[in-house]
């Protein structure tokens, strides 16, 4: 037991907390340390988390085997609109593309006839067009006016004092030459100015989305680069010997150097950790269909993971602004712990307003007066006021009950218990509906999924949801509150390269695209080399995005050696049939080619926890709580998660406490602990 710990460390900066987690690959021990974020100097919070871990495990930064980091810094800069002042250089006659956008109104405002979109990220006076034009095949129609590029740069940099420039030209996905030339001119003339080039970030067509992508990159580049420089410096001083890895939005990680070159790829890395963790568990445990169920204060996020593959998309949106980067298809599907219950002309509604962290739920006594989902959980005995967050926070269940009695029970003419239970029933009804929607749109049945619950309030709500939705198993991983950080530990180094390549799907195209793949592979090799990935750990996967001619939507088909147009089309037809319910007789068309390059990282195997001698385990206490299976109060035995060993089984109703989260299940459910310490909850009497 005294062997040197082999620590993999991940640090996840969220809105209010920094989660630092370490996993000892020898003993399987997981250590979590939480500290507050330090918005004035974010790197300090990260170091605080790492130092805390060191104190808890008796190690120093120099002992760290691998270091993965996810940050919402770029995201926050966009959401709070406090990124850099950016200038845009584009084609002459097209400098308004960013503002014209797709001209659509967000669905949430579709009946608001005085809606006004937020001001564009770059005001019109900071957008310049220069002469030069390519056609849809990437052929030059008008040569680039190089003097015009320089003049535009001079106006933006010297005239307007801008320090970050985004360059996007029409059809640059097909031919990046004009953009590269413009970038070189600008970098040479203005060495202190950051320059972002659209074709470096994405080689996909659609000019507004590409312009938005490169603009967002330019917008967060100064912020993120300063932060990463500072963090690296601090970690260096602390003696970190391994490279710092930064999480990508689409899973996987990259070195900090690469992150500085493409800051935008980090922007949605926060929730990605949870999906990577879900995928890891799905693969390790052989689960075919898993729904990640991440419950935070204001929302529930979910991603569909089928056959060990998380759903991915190549376009995301932040605050209505599109970005063409590969990302997990994570859907925000409803309300969270802070969602407010309110009366609307006699009907009880839950959300969409949230009490947030300030004032927070009524029970926190921070000035909140409107009852929330968390308050209902206190009122029903699911959460223990005395032990909430390990006793770190003083909460009042009485205050929660009083608010529910006054604001929900009285107007509904219900007793306080039924009113509190109703708040959760509504939350569950909405969430069940939303989960059905995101599975059915992929042609899948939600009952065939394992629900993997994490985030602070995930384990509290998931068993209730699972019984309503009819899933076979609801699973609670170890340290559910820090599961996103756990997921980051399991990341490979990943990079994706893509190029739009509109061509008919025929053997001639497949042959021609061999050269494109060769070029992408060359770029991939260079990146993996730069990230110090040993040759034997390098993997590449070729994918073609295919669609029927005349259609807009494409589906990714993985290429196998020896593929012909016929075999690719057959697989595409099958995929289309599965995803859309039908195949068509139309010829196929190739939209883009993709290459995923992976540097496989050594991952800790799941470590078995100690085995129980018998299925029985003694509770550490009990409390009265509301049993939703019988609609009655019952005595719920309370178990300490740390005392649960592999093979222990508990019949509901019962509660499992573990400091930062609470699992509650009911009298028609039971729990077993698997070999790795996961809690598996299913309906009693249901077929296994």
């Amino acid at each position, binding site marked *: 037991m005294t062997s040197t710990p082999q620590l993999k460390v991940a640090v996840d900066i969220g809105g209010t907390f920094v989660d630092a987690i370490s996993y000892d690959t020898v003993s399987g021990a997981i250590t979590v340390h939480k500290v507050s974020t330090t918005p004035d100097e974010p790197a300090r919070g990260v170091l605080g988390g790492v130092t805390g871990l060191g104190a808890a495990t008796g190690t120093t930064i120099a002992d760290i085997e691998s270091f993965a980091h996810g940050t919402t810094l770029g995201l926050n800069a966009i959401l709070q609109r406090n990124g850099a002042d950016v200038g845009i250089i584009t084609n002459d006659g097209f400098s308004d593309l960013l503002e*014209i956008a797709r001209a659509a109104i967000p669905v949430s405002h579709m009946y608001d006839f005085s809606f006004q979109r937020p001001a564009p990220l770059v005001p*019109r006076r900071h957008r310049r067009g220069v002469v030069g034009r390519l056609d*849809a095949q990437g052929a030059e129609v008008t040569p680039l006016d190089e003097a015009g590029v320089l003049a535009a740069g001079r106006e933006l940099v010297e005239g307007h004092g801008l320090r970050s420039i985004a360059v996007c030209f029409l059809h640059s996905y097909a031919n990046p030459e004009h953009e590269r030339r413009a970038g070189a001119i600008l970098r040479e003339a203005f060495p202190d100015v950051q320059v972002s080039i659209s074709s470096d970030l994405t080689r996909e067509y*659609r000019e507004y989305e590409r312009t938005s992508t490169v603009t967002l990159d330019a917008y967060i580049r100064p912020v993120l680069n300063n932060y990463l420089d500072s963090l690296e410096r601090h970690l260096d001083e602390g003696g970190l010997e391994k490279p710092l890895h930064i999480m990508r939005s689409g899973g996987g990680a990259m070195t900090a150097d690469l992150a500085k070159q493409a800051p935008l790829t980090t922007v949605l890395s926060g929730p990605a950790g949870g999906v990577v963790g879900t995928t890891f568990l799905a693969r390790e445990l052989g689960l075919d269909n898993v729904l990640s169920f991440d419950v935070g204060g204001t929302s529930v996020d979910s991603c569909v993971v089928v056959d060990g593959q998380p759903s991915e998309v190549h376009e995301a949106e932040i605050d209505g602004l599109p970005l063409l980067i590969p990302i997990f298809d994570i859907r925000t599907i409803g309300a969270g712990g802070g969602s407010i219950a309110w009366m*609307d002309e006699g*009907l009880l509604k839950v959300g969409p307003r949230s009490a947030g962290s300030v004032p927070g739920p009524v029970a926190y006594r921070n000035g909140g007066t409107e009852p929330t989902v968390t308050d209902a959980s206190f009122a029903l005995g699911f959460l223990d006021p005395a032990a909430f967050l390990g006793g770190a926070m003083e909460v009042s269940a009485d205050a929660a009950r009083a608010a529910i009695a006054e604001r929900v029970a009285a107007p509904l003419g219900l007793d306080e218990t039924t009113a509190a239970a109703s708040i959760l029933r509504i939350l569950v009804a909405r969430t069940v509906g939303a989960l059905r929607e995101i599975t*059915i749109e992929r042609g899948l049945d939600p009952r065939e999924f394992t629900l993997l619950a994490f985030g602070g309030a995930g384990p509290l709500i998931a068993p209730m949801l699972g019984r309503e939705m009819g899933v076979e198993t609801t699973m609670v991983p170890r340290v559910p509150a820090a599961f996103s950080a756990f997921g980051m530990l399991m990341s490979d180094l990943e990079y994706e390269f893509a190029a739009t390549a509109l061509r008919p799907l025929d053997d001639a195209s497949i042959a021609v695209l061999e050269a494109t793949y060769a070029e992408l592979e060359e770029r991939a090799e260079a990146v993996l080399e730069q990230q110090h990935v040993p040759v034997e750990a390098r993997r590449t996967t070729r994918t073609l995005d295919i669609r029927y001619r005349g259609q807009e939507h494409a589906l990714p088909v993985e290429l196998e050696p020896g593929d012909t147009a016929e075999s690719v089309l057959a697989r595409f037809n099958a995929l289309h049939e599965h995803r859309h319910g039908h195949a068509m007789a139309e010829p196929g068309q190739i939209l883009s080619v993709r290459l995923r390059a992976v540097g496989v990282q050594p991952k800790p195997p799941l470590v078995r926890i100690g085995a129980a001698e018998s299925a029985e385990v003694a509770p550490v206490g009990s409390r009265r709580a509301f049993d939703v299976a019988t609609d009655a109060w019952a005595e719920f035995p309370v178990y300490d998660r740390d005392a649960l060993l592999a093979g222990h089984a508990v019949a509901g109703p019962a509660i499992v406490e573990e400091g930062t989260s609470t699992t509650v299940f009911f009298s028609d459910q039971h729990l077993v602990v698997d070999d790795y310490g996961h809690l598996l909850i299913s309906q009693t009497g249901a077929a296994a």
Partner: protein
Amino acid sequence: MSTPTERLDGATVEVIRNYVVSAAEQMRRTLVRSAFNPVIYDVLDFGISIYNAEQQLMAEATGITHFLGANDRALLEGSRYVGIENMAPGDVYLLNYPYWNGAHAYDAMLFAPVFTEGGERPSAYLAVRAHWMDLGAKDAGYVLDSTDMHQEGLIFPGTRIVHRGEVVRDITELIRFNSRLPDLTLGDFHAQLAALRVGERSLHQIWAKFGIEQVEQAIRQVIEHGEAIARKAVEALPDGSWSATDYIDDDNITDDLIEITVRVTIEGDRITADYTGSSPAVLGPVNLPIGSTEGIVKATFKSLTTPNEPANAGHFAPLTVIAEPGSIFAAEYPSATFTQWSAIVATELVHKALAQVLEDIPASSGGDEPGFMALGRDSRTGLDYVVSNNEGIGWGATRDHDGGNAQQHPSQTTVRNTPLEVLEHKAAIFHERLELIQDSAGAGRFRGGVGVLREVRYLDPGEVLSMKKKSKTRPWALEGGQEPEPSEMVLWPGTDAQQRVGMYRAAMQPGDRFVNRTAGGGGHGSPLDRDPRSVVEDVLDGYVSPAAARDVYGVDVRPDGTWSETTARTTRTAPGTN
């Protein structure tokens, strides 16, 4: 009908309501997932509704704004034609008879009764309408000049297309032999069918979970609730009667302006939109069936009362729509109805009436959806192409902010334009310019949004269809704001053949160009009252020219951003003192 059960508590009702709304949403996801044509999955040209046994709207999932509640009347008319007593479990009916369907003939509505196990009469109904690609109208693509219904495609009045779960092959074969695009059309039929099946399954799940009586009672209370909040919202509006008039360009057969007029009356908790006095039905295809007229009023009504709630029958209870049978707003057989741009223009007419009394109503947007279609053969591929684009317009200013720049018309807010890189790939056309138009906004204390200019050159022979019905008269302004220039397309600009057109079809040769200009929004208040700093910002951003700043807004803006007021400002009567 089942006996009314006890009233349910407001929490149980909300739980059941959530499941029913989700059923509509699951139908929508299924339709979008399985549809064959982009008009459904990209343009969202569809409407999905769930009704109770009394054919009252329980929940819906809309695509386009003015498709709101479009299925309501169609279901009533279709059921009357079929006879409810003739419906059997598993049946599906097809309706596209425009005067019942409330849309043109290519919007095909499927409706299905849903029975409980062993039920004698339907306990619910489902409806899914979607735009079909071709049903054999006189021209391929789009019809701009039909003069009666029989030039607009094959008509189904509520035809049983699925009988007890089996697709009726005689009907689908009839469609196959009458459509220029049979695979796409029947593909979309099957997508609609899949959505109906998902809705049916969801309803059975909900009935099994809560029991049919409890669900019916909950829906009664949901509809009561919808009615209560809608009435409360109407009650908050001032009583009175206001009318407004506007013009649609013409019917595409003659050049005459078409007058449209509405009188909106609010009395307590009821509101009436009466189109009496509008033009009689016209020869060309811009006539609106009454269901279509109701749809546009419902969208405006919803924006005023319950913008954030999924619609149910209660929400529309306070609303009455009146139009004289045989007028342009209540077209009768055999009036042509294919080109429903008139519905787009008419959308803001109710606003115009209410703007006389409601302060929050914005001035007119650019007034129309002034897009275009291009078709031809691409010599690069040898393939025929048809592409279309919905262009943004400026929106109207309000009393406290400028109108949005380049946004889709209020009747179709969620529709998107087509990326030019996609257009240039699919079609043999080349863009010379795509930008916002300086000084296109209606000036005002708050100005309208600005419009969009698109200049396109043809690379191969082809055609252009200019789509717009508000190019001859200006969009309206409020409180002394200025009216913007209307939308237009200029064909062959800078040549001897230069021609300004509204809705128009033209043949194009290689090198031929068109410029499509979309209108800005109407202004609100006098431009002389605009905050001079806002005028300066607009000049620095180029939304307003220095000349317009000086002549219209009374602000002299110098290139360095310094400014001074002109005499027009300094000598005017101060606001509020007249």
